[in-house]
């Protein structure tokens, strides 16, 4: 906020105006005011959510008519937060969300970068065709195949320590495995790998390194920005996922936090408690975003590249 204020001060105190410059300054001030108003539009609802999570419902409603709705004043407590943990197994929900999104990100980084490595740095027949097919799938929104996929995963077999079973519904893997391989992640890695000099491969080959070695010890260590981008673009949808877990998860022990809030609300909890629940699952992501803002925004910007 200090940055902003500094700017307002700066743009209003330019000395010695000509008429043209003065008009320019007036416009600058107007534009800055517009920017600030938009900050309120985008920021205030989220601020309201966080502030309200500390207030009892009576106060949330009585504060609505004034600026107090956005200020941490009055009867503040962690009551609502205790309520969240009391009414539902919230710690379990959070743990599930972490397990699911972290596994998806880690496995996705490995699987997609390997595929991209093969497509970008190895020469074999059908390379172009495979890349074309992968890019073509980008246009299909998940929602179009969600229901056929639901039917399909219900018929799939699975092997684990307990032996053979049929149907993936109500498991961790059904929330993770379908989202590991991702056409867009492959594309992002492919693009980045293409920019890493291929001379490096050659040098490594002369030294007797195999392709897996080149992938692991040369290309991947140089691909930091691509790894960050893919990690962010995988994490966000995995953490925020709603439609899929809504359909495939029945038991509370496997339910992620996003779907949990829906069930939570149906327990006739107070608004303050809903805001507390919403804040816990949102604030960590917002903090991560502000901390790694540059990577986040660059990741999103890179998703425009494919246009």
């Amino acid at each position, binding site marked *: 906020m200090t940055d902003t204020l*500094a700017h307002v001060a700066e743009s209003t105190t330019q000395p010695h105006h000509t008429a043209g410059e003065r008009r320019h300054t007036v416009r600058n001030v107007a534009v800055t005011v517009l920017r600030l108003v938009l900050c309120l539009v*985008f920021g205030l*609802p989220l601020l309201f959510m966080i502030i309200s999570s500390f207030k009892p419902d009576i106060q949330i409603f009585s504060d609505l008519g004034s600026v107090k709705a956005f200020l941490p004043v009055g009867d503040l407590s962690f009551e609502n937060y205790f309520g969240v943990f009391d009414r539902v197994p919230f710690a379990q929900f959070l743990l599930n969300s972490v397990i699911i999104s972290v596994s998806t990100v880690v496995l996705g980084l490995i699987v997609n970068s390997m595929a991209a490595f093969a497509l970008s740095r190895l020469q074999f027949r059908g390379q172009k065709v495979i890349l074309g097919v992968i890019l073509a799938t980008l246009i*299909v929104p998940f929602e179009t195949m969600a229901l056929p996929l639901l039917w399909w995963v219900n018929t799939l077999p699975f092997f684990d320590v307990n032996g053979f079973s049929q149907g993936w519904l109500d498991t961790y893997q059904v929330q993770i495995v379908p989202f590991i391989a991702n056409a867009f992640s492959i594309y992002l890695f492919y693009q980045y790998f293409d920019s890493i000099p291929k001379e490096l491969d050659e040098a490594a080959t002369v030294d007797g390194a195999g392709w897996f070695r080149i992938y692991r010890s040369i290309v991947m260590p140089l691909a930091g920005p691509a790894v960050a981008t893919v990690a962010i673009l995988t994490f966000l949808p995995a953490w925020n996922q709603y439609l899929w877990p809504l359909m495939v998860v029945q038991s509370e022990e496997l339910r992620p936090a996003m779907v949990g809030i829906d069930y939570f609300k149906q327990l006739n909890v107070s608004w303050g408690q809903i805001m507390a629940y919403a804040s816990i699952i949102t604030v960590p992501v917002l903090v991560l975003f502000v901390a790694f803002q540059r990577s986040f925004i660059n990741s*999103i*910007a890179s998703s425009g590249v494919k246009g």
Partner: protein
Amino acid sequence: MSSTTYKPPVTAQVAEKTLHKPKSAGRSPGTVALLMLLPAGVLMITFLIIPIGLTFVLAFTNARLISPEPAHFIGLDNFSRLFGNDTFWKSLRNTVIFAVVIVPFQSALALGLALLVNVKMRGVNFFRTVYFLPVVTSMVVVSMLWLFLYQPNGLINAVLAKFGIQGPDWLGNPSTALFAIIVMSAWQAVGFHMVIWLSGLQTIPGELYEAASLDGASPVQQFLHVTWPGLRQTFIFILITITIAAFSLFTQINIMTQGGPLDSTSTVVFQAVRTGFAQQQTGYAAAISLVFFVIVLAVSLLQRYLTREKEAGR
């Protein structure tokens, strides 16, 4: 913020020219490539290609999600049932209205925001960050939050009351519910497209603006003759992504209105989930998905075609 994420190292172009294929590194490149593509390939075939194919098959069967009896073909029954169903037509209409309103609204708003923050000045990152905050907030959370803001006695009506306006029951009234959801959805997603516009804007060389302002072009003229022509690729991408997202509308509906009141906010995906999941009629839901798939494909191709025509005629 740097303008391009993937600025290739300078040496890349040089390397391209002097490229020799690495000599044998143990196994042949073909075998290695196969091994490396295998995990992604198996996963994509299993969870993407097969389900897409299944959409086309299941739509013509009476498959149920959980059923002791095997599914069999029933021809076009699902489609005739679908096209005779009022709720489906209402849902399709709502989805189209949602898309037709939100696509221009959101893309223009995003461009406006991008222009506002596409300046070199102190503190501009602060604005970008704030405008982007809703994007990193889950749609589930946003829906819960706005469910409260839209209450008859919620925040929005409290603010309106300050100005002496009696706000409606936004989500409880069939004539305002869809509109309310449009505004909220644009609020959540517009920061995303602001960033895409911004990366498009930053690919336009600064010299063009300098030349234009030397020629005495006004800001509006600069926008029309320098900025806009440079944004064609970005524009197509934004149109297509907003359109697809608009047709996929589900989360907000499921949390805020359940399609009501009087089906005024029901959507195609909402109906697909209701029939395919809640009622377990996979075949019928696959038919809805297929219609949805064809629409998305057609709209994307049409937009690509139209924007290309405009470019040619310029």
